[in-house]
């Protein structure tokens, strides 16, 4: 994995997972591929690290899981965002945007 990658701030992974699943519920493998694809390979996330995050979010009640079919026709476990999860996503997005804006401002003026 890239030596230049840095650790994501806490909550980043959850936020991205929520965002992705909010668009469209999918199973673990598809989620991993999607994040990799959409981030344009800029973020190197170990695929496995998704799973503990998914479990945490299941426990917190932001996601729920059910049996379903993958696009390829396999039987898979599909994760979807709950109402609570949607709320969480919104609040996380806002706080992230604030943080980002703050950092950007500092970087501009300093």
């Amino acid at each position, binding site marked *: 994995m890239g030596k230049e990658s840095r650790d994501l701030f806490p909550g980043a992974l959850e936020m991205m997972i929520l965002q992705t699943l909010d668009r469209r519920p999918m199973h673990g493998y598809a989620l991993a591929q999607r994040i990799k694809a959409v981030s344009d390979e800029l973020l190197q996330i170990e695929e496995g*690290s998704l799973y503990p995050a998914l479990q945490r979010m299941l426990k917190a009640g932001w996601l729920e899981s059910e049996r379903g079919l993958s696009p390829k026709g396999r039987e898979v476990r599909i994760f979807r965002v709950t109402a609570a999860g949607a709320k969480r996503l919104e609040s996380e997005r806002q706080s992230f945007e604030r943080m980002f804006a703050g950092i950007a401002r500092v970087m501009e003026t300093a």
Partner: protein
Amino acid sequence: MYSRRRRYEELGESMREHLAERVDELVEQGVPREEAEYRARREFGNVTHIEEQARAVWQWPRVESLWADVKYALRQMRRSKGFAAAAVGTLALGIGAAAAMFTVVDHVLLQPLPYKDPGRLVTMDEHGPDSRFQSSTPWVDFVQWRAASRSFEDMAFGSGMMGRSYIQGNSASLQVGGQEVSENLFALLGVKPAMGPGFVAEQPAMGAAKNHGSIVLSHSVWESAFAGDKNIVGRVVRVNDEPYTVVGVMPAGFAYPLGGAPFGQVWTTIELGKKDQGRDWESSYYDAIGRLRPGVTVAAAQAEMTTIQKQVAAQYKDSEIRESRSLVGVKRYDDSLIDKDVKKALLALLAAAGVLWLIASVNVTNLLLARATARQREIAMRGALGASRARLVQQMLVEGLLLSAGAAALGIGLALLAVKVTGSVAPVRLNVNFSTQVDWRILAALCGLTLLTAVLASAWPALMAAKAPIEPALKQGGQQTGAGRRHNRLRSGLVAVEVAMSLTLLVACGLLLRTIYTLRHVPLGYRTDHIIVANLAIPSYRFTDKSVEADLYQPLLQRTQQLHGVDAAGLISEVPLGQTFNIMLSLRMNGNTITAGLKTVSPDIQKIFGMKMLAGRFFTSGDTPTSQGVAVVNPAFAREYAPNKHDWNSLLGMKVWNLRKDMPARIVGVLEDERQTAVAKPSQPEVEVCLCQITPASGIYQPSTIAMDLAVRTRRPAAEMIPELRDLLKQASPELANSKFSTMDQIVEDSFGSQRLAAHLLEVFGGSALLLCVAGLYGLLAYVVSQRTRELGLRIALGAQRGNLLWLVLRQAGAMLLTGVAVGLGLAWVSGRLVRGFLYGVQAHDAWTLAGAALVLFASGMLAAYLPARRAAGVNPMEALRSE
């Protein structure tokens, strides 16, 4: 609600699917399947680790690990049942003994008094400089105290009703402890009646009579005599045939004064009258109790009262009496209730139980250490697999806790049983509460004890196991390493510690057994065989206008003497060692004040007890109410007060006491010394007067007739005689049917009851300690021999004799025993102080006992060592060298 298992399953599924999909994708891209799988896994990350992490989301790691440890420990125990049984049994012995003794101590010493803020309650007694005599207080002194003192919030007083009191219940009459008290007593104690208004509040004063004819019942009397009648308040009841109106019932558990006879109590008010206006022999005397003001210490109150008492004592015209009342003792009420000796005894026994507990814990530590060595490899494996040190220690502590908890459960059962048995065996006179009630203090102590045991027993092995280096243990055949040697030395040291502690218990046991032996063989000065004793509870209210002597005693004696098989019958205030009743007198004789005990006896008593006359004569039928007044004294009296100390005949004819105003009693004889109150105590001066000469006009009529012991010399067995005697008593007066019967031999045995009890307890403790010690020694040696089998085989192969090997093992045992005995002798020397109060006729540092106990311990240990030694000597070198 998803169960956890389902979560795990789903998680596993998701991860497997992910990998499978990736593999398929790669395969589609043309990667060979094997490489595809490899790459997929690598890209995924550490599958196992991630799965663990994901699972951990659903766990409570702390609780999980503890629960896992518990299950593991249970599995271990099931696998090695023998070990578990030995450990649990040993600990149960220690915990049971400690819990039992603590229960008793709690009941006797730690119970809070049933009053509000009992720490501020104090008693006030007048006494002289030598404080041999604690007197009650007359009303006039009390008034002066109240007026002059600033330390007290309030003062109250009371006294027991004269004689035995009986209340007429619904169906039968019941003996009660009648108390006459001042009206403000309950208010002072801070307890209100549970039913009814109680006494009308009134400061004690001459002429105050608002509570005339009122009575307050205790809860037990209300229940037993009146069946808990809800409408008892306002009813008229009869006590000693006098009518009283019930104005209240006290709450359950309340009593005042405490520590008295085990009868339910009733309280009436004192009405001050003529008898309270002076300070002479005819006045009434009371026990005073006061409540200190907040912030006033006992010492401060004591100092103030000492000053005040100077003026009070000055009011006494007689200089001797003034001296005997010159000081006032202010003591906390709760302190005065416990006999100092009993307190020390109980604490000493608690210490002994504690020592036994320590021995048991050390024994189990040794067992756990042995097991830890055997499990070295398994523990090392766990360490190698990633268990942290803390985790390893936790596992072993959990095991220790489990053993300890099991032992506690077993131990409680043992303890309750022990307390019950002790209670039924202990003499009632000891006044120790052996009930098996459990309160929070006992439970807390038990929990603390269990935890402490667990920590003590398993901490050391746990730390040792956790610190052990992993590599050497994992290697093959690494049994006897340097650490193992140190291990053995540690275990030997622990055995020596056990031996030392056991020795102290054995020495204490030996000392007490010798004391009992000595007590049993003290020459008493009177016979005790074939004498039946009945402690009569005389209902004196039945005889107020008659003469008890003429109407009850004489007919009773005559009828008893006519019974078949009776050699002689007599009446005496209290049989020697009876501990039920005594009267102390202050006499004037020849210008001196004499303190002596007083007994009223019938003439046949001398024949019954076989006492010798050292001078003069005893009472005869010739002594009547109209003849010359006579008295007999004992040598202790003669030694102190005889004009000619070498010839006691000089006492004869001296006037000693006024039986009536016009009837002086002159000494006619000196009776041989007797042990009166205790076998171990020397006799006190005593004066005896003839029952036949006591009439209602006599000043000592009252005390002479409220309690009497009937002594009967008979050759028939007691079991036969007692029912006949009881019938006789019932005929004389129905209340007498409840009199307590005993034999003189039994009374003598009971008189050193506390020593006997302590001896029995120490026998149990000492015996258990010896057993544990020996078992521990045996266990260690057996283990060592089995560990060193190869080495022993080698020695034999190289030419060592069997005898040498035997000696090898015995030498190790001997070293442990000698070290332990040496340290133990030192401990026993130091702890001798604790048991000194119990002993009689033997020093706490008695050499014979020390030597004897040491010998017993040493011999038992060597005997136990013999078996492993023989096994060592019998090692077959071929087999030994072949194994491993």
